[in-house]
């Protein structure tokens, strides 16, 4: 077993294990931390796939921004139940119930099963070419030429998210500056 494969195995286990803990953790703050760990695992996988720039973005956006935002939202919330995070029953206790156990498991497992079954017999036209050594540069170039329009739209998506978050959460008093 070569080293690359070993690293892949370990990172995959971290990613999936942490993802599993996101679902099962009793406290929502713990779940958020596991989510961050899972994202770190994915970033590692990106590195293995020669997507170093993307790995950096992944760490910045997911771990740095999204997870932090989630944790802050939970911690700073004025709603007791969110802050305490103990609203849900334990995972193992619910696993035998239908709505929160058997049916989701069956659906998710069937989904994974079918997709994997189809992958097994897929004929990928993989190209065994060495990767672009300087991905960051080519991504940057493409982003401002070929993908100019999506880039601009993405900025508008962020704009609407910003306005939306403000409109929905801002308190009434804030308006009467």
């Amino acid at each position, binding site marked *: 077993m070569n080293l*690359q494969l070993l690293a892949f195995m370990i990172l*995959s286990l971290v*990613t*999936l294990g942490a*993802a599993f803990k*996101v*679902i099962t953790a009793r406290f*929502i703050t713990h*779940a958020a931390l596991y989510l961050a760990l*899972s*994202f770190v695992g994915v970033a590692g*996988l*990106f590195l293995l*796939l020669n*997507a170093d720039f*993307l790995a950096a*973005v992944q760490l910045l*956006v*997911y771990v740095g921004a*999204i997870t932090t*935002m*989630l944790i802050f*939202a939970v911690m700073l*919330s004025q*709603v*007791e*139940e*969110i802050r305490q995070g103990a*609203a*849900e029953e334990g995972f193992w206790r619910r696993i035998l119930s239908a709505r*929160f*156990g058997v049916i*989701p*498991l069956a*659906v*998710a497992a069937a*989904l*994974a099963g079918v*997709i*994997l079954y189809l*992958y*097994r017999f897929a004929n990928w*036209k*993989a*190209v065994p070419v*060495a990767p*672009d050594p300087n*991905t960051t540069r080519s*991504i940057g170039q*493409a*982003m401002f030429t070929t*993908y100019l329009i*999506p880039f601009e739209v*993405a900025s508008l*998506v*962020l704009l609407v*998210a910003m306005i*939306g*978050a403000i409109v929905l*959460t801002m308190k009434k008093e804030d308006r009467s500056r």
Partner: protein
Amino acid sequence: MIPLFYVLVVSTLLFALGVYGALLSTNAIRILMSIEMILNAVNLNLVGFGRYITPSDPRGQIFAIFVMTVAAAEAAVGLAIILVIARRYGAAAIDRVRMLKG
């Protein structure tokens, strides 16, 4: 080199875990986390395909960057909505939110 199939297995399992979490949890914030997991699985797919199918074209990675941007925006708006709901229902327990039905 790691076989493409292995990467796909990991991404599929991550996808399925995200789906499982979304169906399982009553906590809207946890469902939001599960959605982020689903998007991560897609990104893994995109990067993996980019590496093996079009190694010279950064198309897959760029797609993934856009997905991340959207994910961040979605998370922000989602959290805002959840907070609005939580004020009213006292908790992020989504199964209590059911005035609208039938």
